[in-house]
C-alpha cells in the first residue's frame, strides 16, 4: 500500500474531484473529447462591438447565460459550475457542507462601463459628467447591489455560502499563475495538517471591452483574427500573442489518508509545487531564465523526483513570442538531454489563455492526460520555430505511457508556479 506520508514525513495530498468549464464546453468529458480532437474554442467576439479594435477574437464562454453580464457575475457562475462538478465527483462532505477552506483565484474586480453609464445617467449631470456626479448617484441608495457585486470578495462569498466551506474564503491573484497559486495554498494547508481537504477554484470571465483593450495596449494579444481558431499557435514561428479566454477549473484536494479512509476515488497525486518570483520586469521574464528554472527545480525537489521522472509537460505556452521561447529554454536547462524526450504541449492552443483560471484548468487537463494516457496536442503548429527544439506534440493527440507530469504557470509581476502531478501509486 502506498504511503500516506511523503519522504519528508508530510501528508501526501491527492485530488479526489475535478471540474472544468472552457470555451470548448462545460465538464471534463466534453472538454477532453474536444481537446484530444484538437478543436479550438476561440471565436469572434459577439458580446460587444469590436469595430476599430486590433484584436476581435477570444475564447468567450457564450453558452452560459448571465444577466446582467459583468465579469464577476460570469466568473462566479463559471466557478460554481466547475466547483459543482468537482465536489460531486469527490463525494466529500454533504450538500452545503464542504469540510475545508475555499481558495479562489479570481481576476481583480472593477465597476464596468455599463454601470458607469447607468450612474452618469441617474446623476442627471447634463453637460460635464464628473466623479462627483457618480458619487452623488451612488449615495442615493438605489445602487446598493453594486457594492456587493464589485467587492473583490463577492465571488468567493457566494461560493463559500453555497458550498459551506470552512472559515474565511481566500480570494487571490498572482495574475496568470493564480490558478496554480490557489492549488498551492490548499496543498500547503493540508501539508500543515490544518485541514484534511480544500476546495481550490480558479475562474475568469474577463472578456469585456476595457480588459481586452488593456491587454491589447500592452501588445500582448494575437491579432490573427481570421480565422479565430488559428490564432493561438504556441511554439510556432508565426505566433503573435495570446488569446484571451474565459473558463474555470476546480479541484478537491485531500490528504491521502483522509481520502483513503472514506474510500474516495483517487484521481491523482499533487506531488510537489515550486514557486519563485522574478524581480526583473513587470511583464517580462528575466532573460537569464533563472526564476523559471528555479521554479521548476523547486517543484521537482518538493516532489522528491528527478527530471528523468517527468513524462509530460503541460506548458504555460501562451503563444507570445517571448513566453514560449523562454519557457523552452528553461525546460532545456532543467531537463538537459532528457528535455527532447519529454512531450510538451500547450492546451492554450485550443482553450486560449484563461488568465486567472489557467493554472487550475491546466492542472485538471494534466491529470486527465495521466488518467487517459493520452496527450492533448498543441494545435495550429504549422510553421515550426527553429529556436524551439522540443517535442510539442504537434496538431494531433498522442498516446503515451506516463506516470508523472509538470504543469507550468507564469504571470505578470514575476509570478512563477510549477505543479508536479502524478498518478496514484500502486
Amino acid at each position, binding site marked *: 500500500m502506498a504511503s500516506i506520508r511523503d519522504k519528508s514525513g508530510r501528508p501526501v495530498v491527492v485530488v479526489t474531484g475535478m471540474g472544468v468549464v472552457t470555451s470548448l464546453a462545460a465538464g471534463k468529458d466534453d472538454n477532453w473529447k474536444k481537446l484530444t480532437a484538437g478543436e479550438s474554442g476561440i471565436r469572434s467576439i459577439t458580446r460587444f462591438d469590436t469595430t476599430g479594435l486590433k484584436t476581435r477574437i477570444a475564447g468567450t464562454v457564450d453558452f452560459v447565460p448571465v444577466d446582467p453580464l459583468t465579469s464577476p457575475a460570469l466568473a462566479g457562475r463559471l466557478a460554481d459550475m466547475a466547483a459543482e462538478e468537482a465536489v460531486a465527483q469527490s463525494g466529500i462532505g454533504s450538500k452545503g457542507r464542504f469540510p475545508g477552506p475555499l481558495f479562489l483565484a479570481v481576476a481583480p474586480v*472593477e465597476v464596468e462601463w455599463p454601470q458607469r*453609464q447607468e450612474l452618469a445617467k441617474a446623476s442627471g449631470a447634463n453637460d460635464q459628467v464628473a466623479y462627483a456626479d457618480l*458619487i452623488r448617484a451612488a449615495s442615493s441608495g438605489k445602487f446598493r447591489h453594486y457594492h456587493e457585486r464589485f467587492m473583490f470578495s463577492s465571488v468567493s462569498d457566494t461560493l463559500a455560502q453555497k458550498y459551506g466551506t470552512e472559515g474565511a*474564503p*481566500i480570494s*487571490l491573484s498572482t495574475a496568470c499563475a493564480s490558478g496554480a497559486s490557489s492549488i498551492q495554498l490548499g496543498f500547503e494547508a493540508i501539508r500543515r495538517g490544518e485541514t484534511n481537504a480544500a476546495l481550490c477554484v480558479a475562474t475568469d470571465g474577463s472578456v469585456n*471591452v476595457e480588459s481586452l483593450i488593456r491587454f491589447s*495596449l500592452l501588445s500582448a494579444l494575437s491579432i490573427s483574427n481570421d480565422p479565430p481558431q488559428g490564432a493561438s499557435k504556441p511554439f510556432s514561428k508565426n505566433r503573435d500573442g495570446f488569446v484571451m479566454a474565459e473558463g474555470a477549473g476546480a479541484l478537491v484536494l485531500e490528504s491521502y489518508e483522509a481520502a483513503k479512509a472514506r474510500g474516495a476515488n483517487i484521481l491523482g497525486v499533487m506531488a510537489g509545487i515550486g514557486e519563485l518570483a522574478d524581480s526583473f520586469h513587470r511583464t517580462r521574464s528575466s532573460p537569464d531564465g533563472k526564476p523559471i528554472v528555479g521554479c521548476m527545480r523547486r517543484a521537482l525537489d518538493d516532489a522528491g523526483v528527478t527530471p528523468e521522472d517527468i513524462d509530460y509537460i503541460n506548458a504555460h505556452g501562451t503563444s507570445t513570442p517571448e513566453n514560449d521561447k523562454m519557457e523552452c529554454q528553461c525546460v532545456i536547462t532543467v531537463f538537459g538531454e532528457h528535455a527532447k524526450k519529454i512531450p510538451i504541449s500547450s492546451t492554450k492552443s485550443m482553450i486560449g489563455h484563461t488568465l486567472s483560471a489557467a493554472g487550475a484548468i491546466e492542472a485538471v487537463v494534466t491529470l486527465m492526460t495521466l488518467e487517459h494516457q493520452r496527450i492533448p496536442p498543441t494545435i495550429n503548429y504549422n510553421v515550426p520555430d527553429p529556436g524551439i527544439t522540443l517535442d510539442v506534440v504537434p496538431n494531433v493527440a498522442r498516446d503515451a505511457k506516463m506516470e508523472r507530469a509538470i504543469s507550468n504557470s507564469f504571470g505578470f509581476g*514575476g509570478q512563477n508556479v510549477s505543479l508536479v502531478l502524478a498518478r496514484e501509486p500502486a
Partner: protein
Amino acid sequence: MAELPREAWITGIGIVSCLGEGLEAHWAGFAESKRVIDTETYAPYIVHPLAPIDFDKQIPKKGDQRQMEPWQRIGTYAAGLALDSAGVKGNKELLGRMDMIVAAGGGERDEAVDSAILTALPKAERPDIFLNERLMNDLRPTLFLAQLSNLLAGNVSIVHGVTGSSRTFMGEESAGADAVRIALARIKAGQSEIALVGGSYNGQRSDVVMLFEFGGYCLKGEFKPVWERAAQPGFAIASLGAFLVVENRAHAEARGATPIARLSAVASGYSDRGQPGAIKDELGRLWAKVVGTLGPGAAVISGATGVATATAEERDFLASHPELPVRATGTLVGHGVEPQMVMNVALAALAVSRGKLFPPNGAFERPMDGPLTQAVVTGVGHWRGEGLGLVEAVGRDAPG
C-alpha cells in the same frame, strides 16, 4: 531530540499613514491623538490623507515610480521601511528566499479619462464604437499594470528584490487578516523562515468613495471617533501602507535580529452577516482559538471601522471583557481596507514594544496606566469577514 515549538517574531515594521512614516511618527501621533483629516476634497465625505512622503528614499529609480500608481508607491515605500527596520534591506541572499504575502485591492482609475468618456458618450453617434476609440487612445498602458492587484507584490520584487515567493490576497479586510494568518502558519509549520506581509491603500480616490458609497459606508458630516458614529455611521477612507517582517525566532537569532514583538496567533472567521449577533458570536469563537489566558498587562487594538452593525457588535463583544482597555486605531489613521489588519498588528507591536498603551479617544476607551505586554488585535470587515490576532512582548512564555 524534539525540536522546540517554532515561534514567530515581528522583526521589522514599515508603516505610513496620515500620521507620517515609521514607528516614531505613529507613536507621537497616537500620544497626542493627532487628527489629520481632509473634509473638503471629497466633501461631504471625510478621508485621512497620506502624510507628505519623499518616495525617492525607498524607490530610488524615477522610472520605477512612473510605472506605479499611488497605491503601489505607498506600498512599495512601506515595504522598504519594513525591510530597513528588520535590517535586511539589500541582503540579496536573504531577500531571494524571503516569502511575501500582499493584501491588495485594485488600482486607481484615470478619473479624467472616465469623465471625458462619460460626458461624450451620450452624444456619440455610435456609442460602442466611440468607447472603443477612446479607450484605445486614452488608456495608458502602464495604468493597467498599476491596476492589477498582484503588481504591488511585483513592484516590491523589482524595487526591493523580495523573490522567495509572492502571493496576493484580495477580498477587502479579510485579505489582510488572512495574509498575516497564512504567513504565521507557514512559519510555525516550517514552510517558511522569514516573510514580508502587508499591503497599502490609496483612499484619496473618487472611484473608491463611489464604490463604498454604493452601500452608504463612507463617513460624512461631522468627524467623530469610531465608537461614537452610531448616529452617522461610516468609515473614513485612508491612504496608508503597512508591512511586517515576520520571522522564525531561530532564524532571527541566528542573524542577530532584534524582535519588536512576538506574533503569537492569528485566526480569521466568516460569520453569516444576515444573522443578528453573528459577528459577536464569531469573535467569541476566534477569541477562544487565539487569545488563551491574558495577564494584567493586556489591551485590545481594535480595527473597528465605524460601520453600523459591524462596530456595534464588536463593541458589544468587547464590553464582555470589561477588564481590557480598548483602542480603535481607525479614529486616527482611518480605514485602509485590505491592509488594515496589518496596520493594526504593527501598531499593537509598537505599543507592546514600548510597554505602554497610547491614550484613549472617546468615552468607550478608558485610560491604561500599567505596563502593556499583550495586545489582542481585532479586524471586523465592513461587510464580510472577521480577524483576530495576538501580539505579545518577547520574553513572555512562548505559546505551546
